């Protein structure tokens, strides 16, 4: 028996030279509203269906506790390589189209402690000029450029144990046109989130984005946003969720005070307040398809 074990240890010595990459830090490429460090594999396609129902406090008769209405985002993501994806989506909230790309710069392994993914996105609001925003202000657009917004994020995560993964997300958002001079066009935010796996397919998750309005450099304004005439209408987004994984699908159910599903909305223009009970139920469903025909053929 001893000699056989020697043979095994010779094999083990050779095989343990390769780095072992951490996989599945998160179940999906989205945590709740925001993104995770996860990208999708080469030639794989992700289809996202997301709903945010009405506020829980909107009444039983009037709105069936919010279930009478929903904001919807449909999205697609495609993996050009195992580390680079491009995604697009359309939200019914402010009829916004979004386009983004994500690249995994650093992968956690037995040599590197964290995974780092960079994200850049662009959105266009296609509401008619002069519509009333969620915050109650009227928004007028003079040209299409004013409808654009941009965001970028660094997503930094570590899978601490099989069950626990944590992520921080420094974020920068630029909105070309805001409704009031007291609201900054540029916004810095820091997100934090994580997941805890209760079982192989059941996961708890949480996500929080804190905005730093005082860091903006809007020349029209020196009081950190908001004044007596126009109180700052937006709040930080806090979300809690569960992920259920069933093979090709991931179901994410959550409670959040953010109704938007695009970074500009859920980080920068979030009107819901947990204190007042304007909390929204929501879900995301992700379905992954493999378009990798060549891999399939070589294995058959």
């Amino acid at each position, binding site marked *: *028996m001893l*000699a*056989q*074990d*020697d*043979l*095994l240890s*010779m*094999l*083990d010595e*050779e*095989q343990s030279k*390769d780095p*072992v*990459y*951490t*996989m*599945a830090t998160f179940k999906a490429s989205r945590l709740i509203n925001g993104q995770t460090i996860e990208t*999708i*594999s*080469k030639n*794989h396609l992700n289809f996202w269906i997301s709903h945010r129902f009405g506020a829980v406090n909107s009444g039983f008769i009037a709105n069936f506790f919010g279930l009478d209405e929903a904001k919807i985002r449909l999205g697609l993501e495609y993996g050009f390589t*195992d580390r680079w994806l491009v995604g697009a989506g359309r939200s019914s909230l402010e009829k916004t189209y979004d386009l983004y790309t994500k690249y995994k710069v650093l992968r956690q392994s037995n040599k590197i402690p964290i995974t780092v993914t960079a994200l850049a996105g662009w959105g266009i609001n296609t509401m008619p000029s002069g519509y009333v925003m969620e915050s109650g202000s009227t928004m007028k657009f003079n040209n299409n450029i004013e409808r654009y917004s941009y965001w970028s994020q660094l997503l930094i995560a570590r899978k601490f144990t*099989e069950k626990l993964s944590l992520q921080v997300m420094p974020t920068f958002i630029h909105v070309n046109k805001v409704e009031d001079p007291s609201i900054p066009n540029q916004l810095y935010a820091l997100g934090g989130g994580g997941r805890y796996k209760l079982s*192989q*397919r059941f996961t708890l998750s949480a996500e929080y984005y804190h905005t730093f309005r005082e860091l903006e450099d809007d020349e029209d304004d020196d009081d950190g946003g908001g004044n007596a005439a126009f109180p700052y209408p937006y709040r930080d987004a806090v979300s809690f969720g569960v992920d259920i*994984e*069933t*093979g*090709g*699908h991931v179901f994410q159910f959550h409670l959040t005070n953010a109704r938007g599903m695009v970074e500009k909305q859920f980080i920068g223009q979030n009107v819901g307040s947990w204190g007042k009970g304007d909390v929204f139920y929501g879900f995301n469903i992700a379905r*992954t398809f*493999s378009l*990798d025909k060549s*891999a*399939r053929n070589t*294995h*058959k």
Partner: protein
Amino acid sequence: MKTKLIFLSLALMLITGLVSAQSLYRTSVGELSFFSETPVLDIEAVNQKTGAILNVGTKELAIQAKITDFQFPNKLMQEHFNENYMESERFPTAKFAGKIKEQVDLTKAGTYSVTAEGNLTIHGVTKPVQVKGTIVATATALQVNFSFQVRTADYQIEVPTLVFDKIAETITVSGKLNLVKQ
């Protein structure tokens, strides 16, 4: 650096002293695949980095495969295989250590039907197994082919009911190892 080299050569001498290098056949790019067949879904995965060593003197055989090296056409399935079924962070390898039962002289060219008897470890569970296969021997290489069945339940691999990846209770594992004389 020099002391390192000396240590390395000492260690090498020790190993070669234990198992005569003359009689070792080895590969690090062996192919190990498995196949799960259900009416709903066929799943196949291939590992092309399987390591194996056969000592023709003692007829001892060791095979080791890293779980993360199994490639699936669908990468999501690959992730589930590692995360949910094989728990590859806890149990990174599958391995076999055993001996060929038959009295065959593998140093002579020819085709031999053989049975390897030993311990198979998958998902951290070790079980005694017997695997039948063939070895085609040439002057410098041994082509080892085998195929056997594994019951997932024997190795405590849980397949819950709430999944769309339908996985067979019994999985066929086959190997093609081209061992080269050292």
